[in-house]
């Protein structure tokens, strides 16, 4: 039986002691299990020829995060530790990408509620090799003018960082209380809000990025995929 208390305690242990856990001398790990609900990676395409943001959970020795602009103008984001969210957001802001990473948190207030719709789709570069487990999550219904891409980070069942992505015209919450994967691949963010000590995350203004100016409703897509590698 799932215990919210035990899950929250484990999440906090991992968040606060990730490095120590990673350094524990354990027998060779078994093949990674496929996360139940959330993927270890998200690929976001913000429009025709626009941004692709790839977020992956990966090996314990890999960097906490990476933000890379690809030749086609897309941006790849890799996040392996929740503690690196602020750094990722700073990097995204510096690149002028209208995407903000937020996270789930039990301390997050229960109001207001924001719903981000994401539809299932295949992620470019998906692979089924033994070292790379991919889950396809979503494709955006549309890219709205002025919308901000929200990437909600949480810890999946196997302890890796997983992200779900969508778009919203509403202020990006600093944290969300809960994410639910609905039938059809939609994602419902429940109880989004802000912790007591912080306000909404400030996203770059519209028009300051390649992504926002090139987004179109016909070709824009959002793909979320889970990836776990052992590099």
């Amino acid at each position: 039986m799932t215990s919210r208390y035990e899950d929250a305690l484990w999440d906090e242990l991992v968040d606060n002691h990730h490095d120590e856990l990673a350094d524990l001398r354990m027998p060779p790990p078994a093949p990674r299990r496929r996360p139940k609900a959330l993927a270890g990676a998200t690929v976001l395409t913000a429009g025709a020829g626009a941004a692709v943001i790839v977020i992956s959970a990966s090996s314990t020795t890999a960097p906490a995060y990476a933000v890379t602009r690809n030749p086609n103008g897309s941006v790849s984001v890799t996040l392996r530790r929740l503690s690196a969210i602020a750094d990722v957001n700073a990097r995204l802001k510096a690149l002028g990408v209208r995407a903000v990473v937020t996270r789930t948190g039990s301390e997050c207030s229960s109001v207001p509620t924001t719903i981000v719709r994401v539809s299932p789709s295949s992620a470019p570069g998906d692979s089924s090799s033994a070292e790379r487990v991919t889950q396809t999550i979503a494709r955006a219904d549309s890219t709205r003018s002025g919308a901000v891409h929200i990437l909600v980070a949480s810890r999946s069942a196997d302890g890796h960082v997983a992200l779900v992505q969508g778009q919203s015209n509403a202020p990006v919450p600093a944290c969300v209380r809960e994410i639910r994967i609905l039938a059809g691949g939609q994602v419902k963010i429940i109880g989004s809000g802000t912790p007591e000590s912080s306000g909404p995350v400030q996203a770059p203004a519209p028009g300051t990025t390649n992504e926002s100016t090139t987004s179109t409703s016909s070709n824009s897509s959002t793909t979320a995929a889970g990836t776990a590698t052992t590099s």
Partner: protein
Amino acid sequence: MEEFERLYRDNVSAISAFFERRCRDPQEVADLTSETFVEAIRSFAGFDPRRGTVRAWLFGIARHRYAQHCERSAHGRELTKRVRGVHPLADDVRDEIESRIDAQRVGRLLMERYARLSELDQSVLELVDLAGLTPTEAASVLEIAPTTLRVRVFRARGRLRKELTND
């Protein structure tokens, strides 16, 4: 990490119950349970499976943490640097722990009865009869010989039975 998560999942309920029998405050239960596993992470390199099971090892840590907790409380010191104490518990988590604390009321009543026994006998009965450890595991926790523990269990149960009969 996956191995340690398995260790955590397999034992967190029992370790938390150990504190649920002792504390009425959900935050204390969560803090002490968290501290136990933090200590387990930090001292895992020193864990020797030849000396006992993981469960016995974790209970040893839990007992030590609780003793420290009592000492700090007795001296009125502020409990600082708690992992969970940094953030207050979410309402649903607090509710769940309160329910678990309530579910341990029978165990607490028994432990109140145990209070008339020696400290060692209390520990012996709790570990074997309430926590569900094997006599060998409990002996490992208490650092006594398994045969000694079995004798202790037998005698302690007899004393407790006598106490209950007299009441």
